[in-house]
C-alpha cells in the first residue's frame, strides 16, 4: 500500500501500489478534468508531485511539459502510476468545476395533459346508517371505483373523518391518489423534466397544471469519475454488482442534489414533486435503475428494457414524493436511447413531412432520416473530437473555448465562449478552423498539414497538431458515412432533404457553411438547416406535460428501423473515402 496526500487540505488516500493516480483521485471524489478518458491526450489532469516516488515522464507527459512549460514535477494524473508514498497538489485548472455552457432547449407549445391531475372536491359526510370506508368515499367522490392509494397516503387521512371537508387530491392517471390535502392549503403540483446526459445533468421543474417552467438546475454527471464516456462507465459497471451499484448511487445522488436545489429555489416540499420524466441514452437509463449493462456494448447489443411502465420514485431512491411516478423515455436500441426518442417527439419529427434528417452530434452521433414514409436510424462512433475530447488542443464548450474561427488580415480571427482567454478549441471552433485551413490551402484534402509541418499555432501557445486533424477526420468520416448509408437505404439523394435538424452540443454558433465545407453535413441550402439545441430536455418536458405523447411515442418508435453500420458491407469503403475533407458531391 502507498499513501497519497493531497495538499493543501485534501484527503490522505491509501492505495495499492501501481494504482493509476487519476483513478485514485476520482474515486476519492476529486472531480479531475479527464476529458480524454485517461488517455493522456487532452493534458487537462495536470498534477504537481510535491514529493514522493517519481517515475520518468511518459512521452505524452514530456510533450505537455515542453509545450505548456510545466516544470518536471508537473505530470498527467491519468498516466501516472503510484509507486510509493506521494504528496501532490491538484491545480484549480485541473478540476471539473466549470459547468459546460448550456444550450437552450427547444420551446414548443403542446397541449397540457399531464398524467398527474389535481381534483378539488368536497367529501360528503359519513352516512351514519351505512358507514363507508374513507377510501370508499374518496372513490365515490372522484367517480373512480378502482382508485388506489398507498399505505402512506392512507395512514395520513385522519382529518377526513370530519363532516364535509373540502379536499384536493393529486391523482395519477385517474387510478392512484398520490397526495391528499385540505383544499384550503396551497399545494403546488410540480413535475421534473430531466436530461440524463452522460456528461451533464439538467433538471427542470414545471408546474404540472399550467406547464410553466419554474426552475432549472445543472450539474456535471457525478458518474464522470468512473470515466468520461459511456463505454468506460459500462466497463466499470461490468466489473461486478458492487461497481454497478456505485454508478447507480452516484447518479441518484447527483439528481437528489439538483432536486434539493430546486426545492430551495421554489420553496416547495419534496411532497409536492409528483412526477419525474427522464430522457437519457440507454446506458444512463440502465445505470439509473441499477440494471446490468454488460450486453449494451457487445454484439448483439441487447438492452434489458426499451420501455418500462412508470416506476416509483421511492424504489429508485429519488428524494421527491415517495409515491411520485418516474417515467423513462423509451430506448429504441442500445445505441439510440430515450434522449433521441424524446428529442424526435419534441421536435415533432415523427409527424413532420420527409425527406429530412435529424442528427444529434455527440460522442455517438445519432442520425435519423425520414423518407416519404420510412424512418431509419443509426448511431456512429464519432468519438469525442467534436466535444473537445481526444485532441491536444480540445476543450468542451465551456468558458475560454474557441467557438468560432475565421481568417482576417493578420491571420486567424477567433471568438471564445464568454470572450475569455482562449484555453482550447471546442467542436464548432474546430470545424471552422478546418474549413479555414482547407480554404487557405494550409491543409490538403487528405488532412495533411501543408509544408510538412507537425502542428500549427491557432493563437500563441495553442496548437492544432497533425494528430488532432486526423482525429477530426475520423469523427467527420464516421458521421458522413452514417449519413450516406442511411440516405442510400432510403434511395435518397442529399439534395432531396427538405431539412436537416441538428441537436446536441452544438448551438447556433456552428457554421453551416463550414460544416458543409469539410463534409460533416450535406450541401443543402443553409436556410434548410435548423438548430434545435437540447432536444432531450425538450422531449422530457413534453412527455411530462402530455401523457398522450407517451403512448404516441411508443407507437411511433415501433416504426423506426435501425441500421447497424458495422454490418453494412459498404461501410469500410465509404468510411475510407470520407476521410478526405471536403464538401459532399
Amino acid at each position: 500500500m502507498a499513501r497519497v496526500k493531497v495538499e493543501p487540505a485534501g484527503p490522505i488516500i491509501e492505495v495499492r501500489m501501481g494504482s493509476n493516480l487519476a483513478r485514485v483521485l476520482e474515486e476519492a471524489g476529486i472531480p479531475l478534468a479527464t476529458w480524454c478518458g485517461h488517455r493522456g491526450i487532452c493534458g487537462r489532469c495536470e498534477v504537481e508531485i510535491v514529493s514522493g516516488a517519481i517515475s520518468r515522464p511518459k512521452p505524452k507527459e514530456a510533450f505537455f511539459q515542453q509545450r505548456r512549460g510545466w516544470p518536471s514535477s508537473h505530470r498527467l494524473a491519468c498516466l501516472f502510476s503510484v509507486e510509493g508514498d506521494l504528496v501532490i497538489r491538484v491545480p484549480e485548472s485541473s478540476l471539473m468545476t466549470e459547468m459546460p455552457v448550456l444550450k437552450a432547449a427547444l420551446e414548443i407549445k403542446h397541449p397540457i395533459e399531464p398524467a398527474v391531475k389535481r381534483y378539488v372536491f368536497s367529501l360528503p359526510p359519513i352516512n351514519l346508517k351505512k358507514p363507508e370506508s374513507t377510501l370508499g368515499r374518496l372513490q365515490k367522490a372522484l367517480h373512480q371505483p378502482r382508485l388506489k392509494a398507498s399505505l402512506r397516503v392512507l395512514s395520513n387521512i385522519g382529518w377526513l373523518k370530519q363532516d364535509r371537508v373540502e379536499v384536493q387530491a393529486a391523482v395519477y392517471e385517474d387510478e392512484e391518489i398520490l397526495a391528499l390535502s385540505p383544499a384550503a392549503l396551497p399545494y403546488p403540483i410540480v413535475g421534473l423534466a430531466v436530461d440524463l446526459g452522460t456528461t451533464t445533468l439538467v433538471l427542470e421543474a414545471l408546474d404540472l397544471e399550467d406547464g410553466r417552467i419554474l426552475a432549472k438546475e445543472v450539474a456535471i454527471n457525478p458518474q464522470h469519475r468512473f470515466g468520461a464516456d459511456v463505454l468506460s462507465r459500462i466497463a466499470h459497471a461490468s466489473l461486478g454488482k458492487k461497481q454497478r451499484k456505485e454508478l447507480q448511487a452516484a447518479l441518484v445522488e447527483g439528481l437528489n442534489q439538483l432536486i434539493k436545489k430546486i426545492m430551495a429555489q421554489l420553496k416547495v416540499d419534496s411532497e409536492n414533486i409528483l412526477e419525474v420524466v427522464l430522457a437519457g441514452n440507454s446506458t444512463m437509463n440502465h445505470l439509473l435503475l441499477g440494471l446490468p449493462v454488460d450486453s449494451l456494448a457487445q454484439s448483439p447489443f441487447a438492452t434489458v428494457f426499451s420501455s418500462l411502465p412508470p416506476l416509483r420514485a421511492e424504489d429508485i431512491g429519488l428524494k421527491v414524493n415517495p409515491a411520485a411516478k418516474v417515467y423513462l423515455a423509451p430506448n429504441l436500441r442500445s445505441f439510440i436511447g430515450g434522449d433521441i426518442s424524446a428529442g424526435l417527439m419534441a421536435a415533432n419529427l415523427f409527424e413532420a413531412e420527409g425527406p429530412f434528417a435529424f442528427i444529434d452530434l455527440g460522442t455517438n452521433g445519432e442520425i435519423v432520416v425520414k423518407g416519404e414514409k420510412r424512418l431509419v436510424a443509426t448511431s456512429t462512433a464519432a468519438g469525442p473530437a467534436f466535444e473537445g475530447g481526444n485532441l491536444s488542443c480540445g476543450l468542451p464548450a465551456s468558458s475560454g473555448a474557441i467557438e468560432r474561427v475565421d481568417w482576417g488580415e493578420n491571420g486567424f480571427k477567433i471568438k471564445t465562449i464568454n470572450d475569455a482567454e482562449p484555453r482550447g478549441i471546442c467542436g464548432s471552433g474546430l470545424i471552422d478552423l478546418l474549413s479555414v485551413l482547407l480554404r487557405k490551402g494550409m491543409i490538403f484534402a487528405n488532412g495533411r498539414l501543408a509544408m510538412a509541418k507537425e502542428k500549427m499555432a491557432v493563437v500563441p501557445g495553442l496548437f492544432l497538431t497533425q494528430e488532432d486533424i486526423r482525429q477530426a477526420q475520423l469523427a467527420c468520416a464516421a458521421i458522413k458515412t452514417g449519413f450516406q448509408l442511411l440516405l442510400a437505404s432510403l434511395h435518397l439523394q442529399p439534395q432531396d432533404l427538405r431539412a436537416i435538424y441538428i441537436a446536441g452540443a452544438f448551438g447556433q454558433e456552428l457554421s453551416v457553411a463550414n460544416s458543409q465545407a469539410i463534409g460533416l453535413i450535406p450541401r443543402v441550402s443553409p436556410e434548410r438547416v435548423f438548430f434545435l439545441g437540447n432536444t432531450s430536455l425538450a422531449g422530457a418536458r413534453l412527455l411530462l406535460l402530455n401523457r398522450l405523447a407517451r403512448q404516441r411515442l411508443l407507437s411511433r418508435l415501433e416504426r423506426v428501423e435501425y441500421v447497424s453500420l458495422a454490418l453494412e458491407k459498404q461501410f469500410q469503403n465509404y468510411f475510407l473515402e470520407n476521410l478526405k475533407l471536403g464538401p459532399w458531391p
Partner: protein
Amino acid sequence: MDKERILALMTQAIIEGDQTEAVRLAQEALSLRLDPTEVIERGYVPGIQKVGELWEKGDYFLPELITSAEAMKAAMAVLDPELKRGIYATKSMGKIVIGTVEGDIHDIGKNIVASMLQASGFEVYDLGADVKLEKFWQKAEEVQADVIGLSALLTTTMVGQKRFLEMLAERQLTGRFKVIVGGAPVTAEWAQRIGADGYAENAVAAVRLVKELLSQKTGRKTP
C-alpha cells in the same frame, strides 16, 4: 524497358497507390520473364516500406495506406501463380491468423492491419469480426500459424484478449503462437499485463512488430 526502370516504376506505383499501374507492371515483368521474387523484393517491397515511412511521418493517413496496400495485393496476385510454379526460390515471411474478438463487430482497424501485413508479404488468415475465441487457435493450429492477432475496439470486449491468453494457457498452448493485440482502447501496458507477446498502435507498427517477433522466433528455431 530495362529491369531497373521497371522496378523503380513498381516502387512508385505502390507509393502512389496506383493499382492499375502496379498490376500492369507485374504483367509486364511476367512477359519479360523476370524473376518474380526479385520483382517483389526490389520492386514492390521498397514501395510499401516507403508507404510505412510516410505514414509514420504523418504524410499518409488511412486512405493512402489502404490504396497502397491494395495495389500491392493486386500486383502480388498477378505474380502468385508464377511463384507457385516453384522454380524460383521463395521464402514465406510467416503466417498470421487475425480477427476481432467476440462481441465486437468493428473491423476496419483489423482489416487495415491485415491488408498491410499481407502487402508486406505475410500469409494472412482473416477470420473477420465477432470471432469466437476458440476459432483463433483452431485456425492457427490448422494452418500452422506463427502469429495470432486479436483486435478489440471496446473497453468491454478487450477482456476477450485476456481470456484468449488464459484459454491458451489452459490448453498448454502458451508459447506455441506469438499473440499480438491491438485496437483503440488497447495499450502496451494492457498487452504486458495479460501476457501478450506484443502490441502495436497502428498497421505500420504492426508489420514491424510481427517482423521482430518472427525474427526472434526463427532465431531460436527448432526443427
